[in-house]
């Protein structure tokens, strides 16, 4: 029994999760690749087989690269990729501008205050994402809190149209992903050695200069990790542009959804997903690199 356990026990631990993730996470990508190379067909499932046996028993491989070509000829796809990139990029920048001072402030409080503030920052992450996006609608809609407050203050005289605009999409992404920016930034800023800043001050460096020379470079891993944690989900965002955005806010997640449920063109949808994935490899690799670096520190 013991010898058997020593020999095979290791695999009894490793194999269940390995096989599960292989079958239900990795292999599906192979299916998506396969289907992206097939053609739409009026049948169930709605695409052709790429490998068929001809009547005399010879296998016949019919690869159709038309779906990928189609992505480059119909400008909807290119434009929505670019639009998603742009939206994700600028919302990441705004999150960084807002999240950095927040993380910095939290890192400068006492240990017990830090714990409470972190809980306050994390708590929204645990509450439903969908419901938070919905809650935001209550603030920015035409008769929502923001417009009511601004009208009351006399800043504006007509309610602002924010819902169904690009601005609403930015609000949604920043509101939803701000905690993801603050937490990694806090993790690096908390570890920052104060004596370095004191040394810089002793040598006559003004505070802004010490910040640029010491704090900013040392917090770079946190900046990269936080930015990627906002950028990567933002670029594939579906719920926010659908609920808050207008018809112009065609992000790639929305195009994918429509292609799948609206047009029921599964081969093209698979091709969109594959290309999207290839575009994401860069940011993901960057994130992994800095994340492992941060773990090693």
């Amino acid at each position: 029994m013991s010898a058997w356990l020593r020999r095979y026990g290791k695999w009894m631990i490793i194999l269940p999760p390995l096989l599960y993730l292989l079958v239900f996470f990795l292999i599906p990508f192979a299916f998506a690749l396969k289907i992206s190379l097939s053609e739409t067909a009026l049948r169930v499932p709605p695409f052709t087989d790429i490998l068929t046996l001809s009547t005399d028993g010879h296998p016949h491989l019919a690869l159709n690269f038309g779906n990928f070509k189609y992505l480059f000829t119909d400008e909807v796809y290119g434009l929505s990729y670019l639009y998603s990139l742009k939206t994700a990029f600028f919302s990441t920048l705004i999150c960084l501008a807002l999240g950095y001072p927040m993380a910095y402030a939290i890192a400068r409080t006492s240990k017990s205050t830090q714990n409470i503030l972190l809980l306050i920052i994390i708590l929204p992450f645990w509450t439903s994402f969908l419901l938070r996006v919905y809650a935001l609608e209550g603030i920015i809609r035409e008769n929502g809190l923001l417009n009511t407050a601004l009208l009351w203050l006399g800043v504006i005289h007509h309610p602002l149209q924010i819902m169904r605009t690009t601005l609403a999409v930015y609000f949604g992404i920043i509101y939803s992903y701000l905690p993801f920016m603050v937490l990694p930034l806090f993790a690096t800023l908390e570890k920052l050695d104060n004596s370095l800043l004191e040394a810089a001050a002793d040598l006559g460096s003004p505070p802004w200069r010490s910040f640029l020379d010491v704090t900013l470079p040392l917090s770079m891993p946190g900046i990269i990790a936080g930015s990627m944690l906002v950028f990567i989900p933002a670029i594939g965002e579906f719920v926010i542009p659908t609920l808050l955005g207008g018809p112009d806010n065609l992000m790639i997640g929305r195009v994918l959804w429509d292609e799948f449920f609206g047009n029921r063109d599964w081969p093209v949808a698979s091709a969109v997903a594959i290309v999207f994935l290839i575009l994401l490899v860069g940011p993901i690799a960057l994130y992994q690199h800095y994340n492992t670096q941060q773990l090693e520190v």
Partner: protein
Amino acid sequence: MNERVSPFLLTILCIGIAILYVPIIVLIAYSFNASALVSVWGGFSTSWYGALLHNEQILDAAWLSLKVGVVVSTGAVMLGTLAAIGLVRFARFRGRLLLIGMVNAPLVMPEIVTGITQLLLFISMLHLIGWPHRGFLTIVIAHIAFCTAYVTITVQSRLRTVDRSLEEAAMDLGSGPVRAFLDTTLPAIMPALASSWLLSFTLSLDDLVISSFVSGPGASTLPMVIFSKVKLGVSPDINALASLVIGAVGVCVVLAGYLMRRTERQRVLDMQLAER
């Protein structure tokens, strides 16, 4: 670094926290609005909460989501813990890199891509082997895949800090390796298992995109029902439902945090006593 926080930083911190909380607070306040018009305050009322109890569609969806959540988090904790033990305890095995990649990828993979690929797998499997039919089962299978990743990461970091000498001592005293693990290391990683169970449960309960893809006719989870209603605009009964969900999750998280900190403190105390 402990220093005085400048007023400028404090202001931005307050603005940031306000951004995070004001929408939720306003939502909860409006769930008690007697008026059906979302823009008019018609006095305090709990009628929307009462209306929820008679909404069959929402009750069915909530029940389905809870069932999915319990099965998913239990399955994910088992698989994820095994994966974490494998990665921490066995430095070298065939497929180690593959496993590391597969537990990290779901954290950064856009849900919409995971959802589409898993749907395509289920469709192809149904076509080839006549199983599984889309519904409860496919939602559970798909959720376990991404929740396992979160569990593995959480348990792995806890497992790394566990002192192995206790386990070795138990083995020296004649315990088998499995028994020694169950008696010494498992209690030490229990808080991580509990928190990753809760994390999986919340993630599963909250998932809209993947469920929408892999679910079949007749199996709508709570987020799917909420999404289809919310697309049409703000409605007072969804305000009530949202407040209930947010309240329940908030209480759970605070409670879990408190319990975990207490067990952790107890454990540290025990260790100090043992070292004396």
